[in-house]
């Protein structure tokens, strides 16, 4: 037929597909640059000067972390407070803390945590989310999990549990023994504490704030 329109022209659609794809890809790459800047890890200097980073430096383990409602943003954000002892010290240097975090992050992958737990909400759904596990009241001074291990501090209780999970059954569904050493456990706890300080735009919501809400809404 004579009236060939552009809409039924293969070349036109081929070019459109190429342009749309290229445009979307360039936009994504541009956003990636911006996001990469924003999620790069902060430094010890930032922490000392109170500069808020979305992902703080490893020395955040020297500080107390809380999860507070931010009225302006309309959701909770992690707040880095005063100094706090972590395995008996609050003067972990940038190198020491970095090495500990490195060990912990490697450990989290080597032990395949993500295929039972979720980290930042991603992973498997067979075990609790670990995003803010450090802030879980159950591991706190009055928490049942800390009491169960008989350790005086949160970090020691967590490290003890990680090394001997099947000695502390908390549920019918237990964590298996993964051969985690004392040093690895320390690293993993540092990794968890660091993860809890990441600004996740309010995920998970109302973490550990509502007590007993299930039975009386």
């Amino acid at each position: 037929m004579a009236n060939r329109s552009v809409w039924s022209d293969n070349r036109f659609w081929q070019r459109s597909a190429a342009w749309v794809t290229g445009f979307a890809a360039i936009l994504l790459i541009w956003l990636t640059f911006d996001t990469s800047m924003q999620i790069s890890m902060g430094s010890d200097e930032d922490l000392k000067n109170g500069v808020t980073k979305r992902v703080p430096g490893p020395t955040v383990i020297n500080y107390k972390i809380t999860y507070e409602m931010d009225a302006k943003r309309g959701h909770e954000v992690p707040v880095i407070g005063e100094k706090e002892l972590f395995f008996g010290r609050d003067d972990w240097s940038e190198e020491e803390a970095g090495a500990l975090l490195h060990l912990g992050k490697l450990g989290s992958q080597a032990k395949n945590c993500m295929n039972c737990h979720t980290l930042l909400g991603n992973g498997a759904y067979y075990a609790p989310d670990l995003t803010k596990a450090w802030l879980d009241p159950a591991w706190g001074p009055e928490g049942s999990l800390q009491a169960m291990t008989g350790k005086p501090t949160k970090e020691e209780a967590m490290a003890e549990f990680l090394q001997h999970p099947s000695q502390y059954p908390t549920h019918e569904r237990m964590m298996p023994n993964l051969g985690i050493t004392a040093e690895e456990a320390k690293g993993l706890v540092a990794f968890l504490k660091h993860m809890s300080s990441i600004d996740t735009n309010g995920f998970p919501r109302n973490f550990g704030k509502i007590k007993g809400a299930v039975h009386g809404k």
Partner: protein
Amino acid sequence: MLDPSLIRPEIALDDFLPIFVSSVLAMLFGGFYVGIYTAVKVKMLKSWAMPIAYLFWLFTAYCLYIMGSLMHVGEFTAKALIVSMIGYLLLPHAVYHMQHQVHEENEH
């Protein structure tokens, strides 16, 4: 018992089910809309079915409206949803038009 600042502004507990149901129905009705539209156009269904197709589009739009309002979506997302709905209304027309034209050009 609850700190008032913690009460979620976005979603009430009783609203979760209607949100999920309406978003599923939105998609299903949307599927019916384009399915019936295309079936009528290629004469697998009689032409009296066409108003039913548009009725399903209305259902889709309504479900999406319920979903959006219960979720308390922001202004931006609301606009995105409206644009999607208009796109959805036009989509099968555009698709059919183009396919038909190519068919005509190549088989006559």
